[in-house]
C-alpha cells in the first residue's frame, strides 16, 4: 500500500498503432520516464471512453491524466512538459520556446498536412501538394543546416532531443511509406543532407529505436486508406 505521501498518477494513452500523432505523445512520455497504460482503439468502432474524452474531434491521441482528457498531440506534449518537470522538452528561454513552437507549427501546417493530402490525392491535385511539400522540406533543410552540426545532432540543442525533434520524428518512419503508397517522392538525400543526417541520428536514439514500426505493415494500412479516399472522391 502506498505511503500516502503522493497520489498515484494514472496516465492512459488512447491511440492507434499507426498514428504518427500518437507516436509523438509516446515519445514525449518515454522521454520523461512517465509510466502509462496504452489502449489501442478501433477507429471503426470508437470506444465510449474515446467519444466522451474527445467529443469535439473524436480522434486519437487522447491522454487521460487521472481521468482528465487532453487532446491534440502538440497540446498534449506541452501539457506533459508543464506537468512533469524532469527532462524538459521545450527550452527554458522564452525566445527559444517561441522558435521551437514556430517550427512545430511549420512542420504541422506545411509538412504533416501536405503529406496527408498527398496520400489521398492523385493527378494534378497530388502534383500541386507534392510541389508544396518539396518547398517546405527545402525550408526545413535550411533550418537544419543552420542549427545542426557534428556537435549538435538534434533541434533540441545541447540537451539532445527537444520539442521540434519529437514533433518532426514521424517523418523517419512514415514519409517513405506514404511515398511508396502515394507514388511520389519528396525525400532526397542530395537535396536534404542535413535532414537525412538528422533522421539517421533520430532513429538510433535508444528510446526511439524500439518504437519504430514495420514498414510492410504500414504500407498495407496506408494503401487501404488511399483506396478508401480515392474511392470516395470518385463517387462525388
Amino acid at each position, binding site marked *: 500500500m502506498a505511503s500516502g505521501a503522493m497520489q498515484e498518477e494514472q496516465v492512459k494513452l488512447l491511440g492507434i498503432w499507426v498514428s504518427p500523432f500518437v507516436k509523438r505523445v509516446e515519445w514525449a512520455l518515454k522521454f520523461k520516464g512517465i509510466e502509462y497504460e496504452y489502449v489501442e482503439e478501433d477507429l471503426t468502432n470508437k470506444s465510449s471512453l474515446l467519444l466522451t474524452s474527445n467529443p469535439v474531434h473524436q480522434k486519437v491521441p487522447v491522454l487521460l491524466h487521472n481521468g482528465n482528457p487532453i*487532446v491534440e498531440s502538440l*497540446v498534449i506534449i*506541452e*501539457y506533459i512538459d508543464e506537468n512533469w518537470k524532469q527532462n524538459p522538452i521545450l527550452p527554458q528561454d*522564452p525566445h527559444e520556446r*517561441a522558435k521551437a513552437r*514556430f517550427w512545430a*507549427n511549420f512542420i504541422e501546417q506545411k509538412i504533416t498536412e501536405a503529406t496527408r493530402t498527398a496520400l489521398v490525392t492523385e493527378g494534378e491535385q497530388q502534383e500541386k501538394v507534392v510541389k508544396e511539400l518539396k518547398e517546405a522540406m527545402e525550408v526545413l533543410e535550411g533550418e537544419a543546416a543552420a542549427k545542426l552540426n557534428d556537435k549538435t545532432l538534434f533541434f533540441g540543442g545541447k540537451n539532445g532531443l527537444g520539442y521540434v525533434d519529437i514533433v518532426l520524428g514521424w517523418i523517419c518512419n512514415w514519409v517513405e511509406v506514404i511515398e511508396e503508397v502515394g507514388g511520389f517522392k519528396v525525400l532526397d538525400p542530395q537535396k536534404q543532407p542535413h535532414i537525412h543526417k538528422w533522421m539517421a541520428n533520430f532513429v538510433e536514439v535508444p528510446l526511439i529505436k524500439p518504437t519504430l514500426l514495420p514498414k510492410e505493415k504500414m504500407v498495407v494500412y496506408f494503401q487501404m486508406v488511399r483506396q478508401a479516399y480515392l474511392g470516395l472522391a470518385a463517387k462525388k
Partner: protein
Amino acid sequence: MAEELKLFRTWSSVFALRIVWALKIKGVEYETIFEDLSNKSPSLLQYNPVHKKVPVLVHNGKPIAESLVILEYIDETWRETPLLPEDPYERAMARFWAKFGDDKVLTSIVWGVFFKEGKEQEEAMLEAMEHLQFLEDELKGKRFFGGERIGFVDLALGWLANMISIFEEVAGLKMVDEDKFPLLAAWMQEFADSPIIKDNWPPRDKMIAKFQALRDAKLAAAASK
C-alpha cells in the same frame, strides 16, 4: 534598461490585433510598423523569412512570428495580467480552444461560408454551425472564455466579435443567430465593448470595402474555372 519592442502589422489583420490587445492589456509599450503586404519591407522579410507575413513581434532585435506563438511569448515575458491560466490542465484546455478556433471555426466561416456561395456555402454553413455550438457550450457559466476576465482564448477568438457582423453584411446572411447562440452572441458583444478592445477595431467602412472586394474576387475566380 531600454526595451525595444516593435510590432509589424497591417491596419486590417485580425491576427495582428491579437498582439495589440495582449500588449495593451499588459500595459507594455511598443512601436507599431504598418506593412503594405503588396510591397513588403526588407525588415519584414528579414524578420519572417519563412512566411513573410504579419504579425511579427521583434523584442530587442529578436523576432517572433505566428500570432498564437507570439501571445505565449508575451505571456511568458511580461508576467502581469496573465493571459493563460496557471494550472497545466487549464492551460491545455485554453490551447485546445485557441487551436479549435483557428483550425475549425475560422476555416469554416472564412473559407467555407464567406468566400463561397450556393451549395458549397450551404454545406460549409452546416459545419460552421456545429463548430459554433461547441463554443456556445464552452461558455456555459462563464462571462469570458477565460472566466471572469479576458484571457488567451478570448484573444484568439476575438476576431468573431468584429468580423462576424462584417461578413454577415457583405455576404448577406446571418451567421451567429442570437436565438441559436445566445451565450456566444452575448460574449461577442461584451468582448467588443471591453476597454482596450473597443478602442482598437479597424475602421468598419474600410473593412467592409476590403472584404467586399476580396469576396467578389474569390467568387469571380471560382466562377471562371
